[in-house]
């Protein structure tokens, strides 16, 4: 029965135009960014050479497709949750607004089954969106700017990853990103079962993520205890994939937080949805 419910939820999700807004937005933004990198690539390469030329012998194409994809991940992983809430926000609340629960929940299925199917469909949507970003940025980047070793500069130092190893790290980073986005889906779901207006969960999720993100990056000692416990603080987990060696202990901690938050959101969603009176 769960499979049949899942099929239904996928039909509902992927028959709506708003589902494709995220996919469409990425299909515009990624090629545009790659074009920008290709136009400004020589200048970027000169700057890198100027910064590192005294210590390293620089050869080959530094501003390559993998490097551009890595830069894009920084920019887009902040914004992907916005696109995800558009698709997942009305999964439950949208049915309340439309009144369709009256024909759907009066069937021989339990509310737990219906919610599980909705959650799986929303997870499918968010994972496809992240995979679409990966496919676009790595695909277009590699074709347009070429493959090459990747230089990663952060506050702790410089890491040069050979392109074949970097590809594996990208796969790992996107896997972590999918997990991050699933936690966003679960938060959207919780808000979606709490209200009957489809706009509420979208605005609510974004408001919570923005506030939590701001709190996560403020460099204030007084907030340090809070920051490490915020969900958004652990959204940096994908970046660990580009450390060498990968700090698996930090990865484990962040994943535990993300899974923990998602578990709480899901648990609360089931409790609320099972007790919810369908009034619309």
């Amino acid at each position, binding site marked *: 029965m769960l499979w*049949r419910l899942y*099929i239904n939820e996928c039909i509902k999700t992927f028959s709506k135009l708003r589902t494709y807004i995220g996919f469409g937005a990425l299909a515009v933004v990624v090629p545009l960014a790659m074009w920008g990198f290709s136009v400004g690539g020589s200048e970027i390469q000169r700057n890198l050479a100027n910064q590192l030329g005294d210590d390293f012998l620089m050869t080959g194409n530094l501003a390559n497709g993998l490097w551009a994809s890595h830069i894009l991940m920084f920019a887009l992983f902040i914004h992907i949750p916005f696109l995800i809430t558009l698709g997942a926000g009305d999964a439950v609340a949208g049915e309340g607004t439309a009144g369709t629960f*009256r*024909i*759907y929940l009066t*069937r*021989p299925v339990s509310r737990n089954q219906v919610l599980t199917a909705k959650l799986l469909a929303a997870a499918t949507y968010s994972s496809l969106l992240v995979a679409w970003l990966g496919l676009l940025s790595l695909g277009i980047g590699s074709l347009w700017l070429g493959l090459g070793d990747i230089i990663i500069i952060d506050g702790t130092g410089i890491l040069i990853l050979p392109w074949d190893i970097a590809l594996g790290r990208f796969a790992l980073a996107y896997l972590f990103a999918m997990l991050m986005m699933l936690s966003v889906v679960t938060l959207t779901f919780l808000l979606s079962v709490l209200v009957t207006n489809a706009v509420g969960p979208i605005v609510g999720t974004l408001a919570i993520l923005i506030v939590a993100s701001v709190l996560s990056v403020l460099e204030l000692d007084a907030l340090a205890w809070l920051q490490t416990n915020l969900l958004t603080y652990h959204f940096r987990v994908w970046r660990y994939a580009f450390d060498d060696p990968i700090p698996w202990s930090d990865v484990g901690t962040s994943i535990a937080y993300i899974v923990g938050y998602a578990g709480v959101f899901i648990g609360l969603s089931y409790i609320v949805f099972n007790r919810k*009176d369908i*009034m619309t």
Partner: protein
Amino acid sequence: MPGPILATANLSKRYGKRLAVDNLSLEIEQGEIFGFLGPNGSGKTTTIRMLLSLIKPSGGEVFCFGEPISKNYPRYLGKIGALVEKADFYLNLSALTNLKMLARLHENVDEARCREVLALVGLDDRRNDAVKTYSHGMQQRLGIAQAILHRPQLLILDEPSTGLDPQGMHEIRGMILGLVRQEGMTVFLSSHLLNEVEQICTSMAVLNEGKLLVSGPVKQFLSAEAATLTELQAQPPEQVRQVLAGLPFVTEIDDRQGGLRFRVAYDQRPKVLQALTAAGVEVFSMHPVSNLEDYFLSLFGSKEMAG
């Protein structure tokens, strides 16, 4: 004799301080068309939503096929078809896709059955059109189609004629009667259209402010009313009024165009005729008025139900 197919025992629903349904106990026997009447806001839809587990009762229990539904509601919902208020569907999808999605939630309901019910409600030729292109009447008919899709034993319809033109109402009533006769369904019909209940229901209950006022066979209410409300055609009107006003067993004299209505006990009717003829009044006709609307007017003292 089998027990009731659907029953409620002291069913209640409270919203804050307001008691929407108050200790409601009903029994619906198999094969009945049960009319559930009450003014707007009387708790009919709240009751129906509790019957279908859409909202949780604050107290009491719903029994379906003799067992409490709270223990395993999906099992009972498989035997019930429902149309609650207006029919809402996934508007961007076609009627057939909507029904196929719902069919997946039942065992042994295939696409052929979806086509069959669409044909039954006269929508087969529009099956591939998005529901958003349907008129209100077509959506209500599709609502009936989704309710009977899985051949339920019990059909719960909440004001299915709302917003329909007289032709549409007639068709819906015909469909309900056909389902009872051909498929042997039991029907729980919530309505505030008294003539609808009078025409097709075998028994009924009246709800007001969440409380059950009366329940029983429809005929019982009609015959009770026929004994008291009477319509008279006689001349001259002034003299008729004067004679009736002088009779202590005649009450509620009401002027109507072309006649008078008044209440009189069945066994007092000959005395009315005797008094009128003795006063030289020409009596053209005197007959009992028998309909639920008059019963409700006496019950509620207003025309609110006639809406």
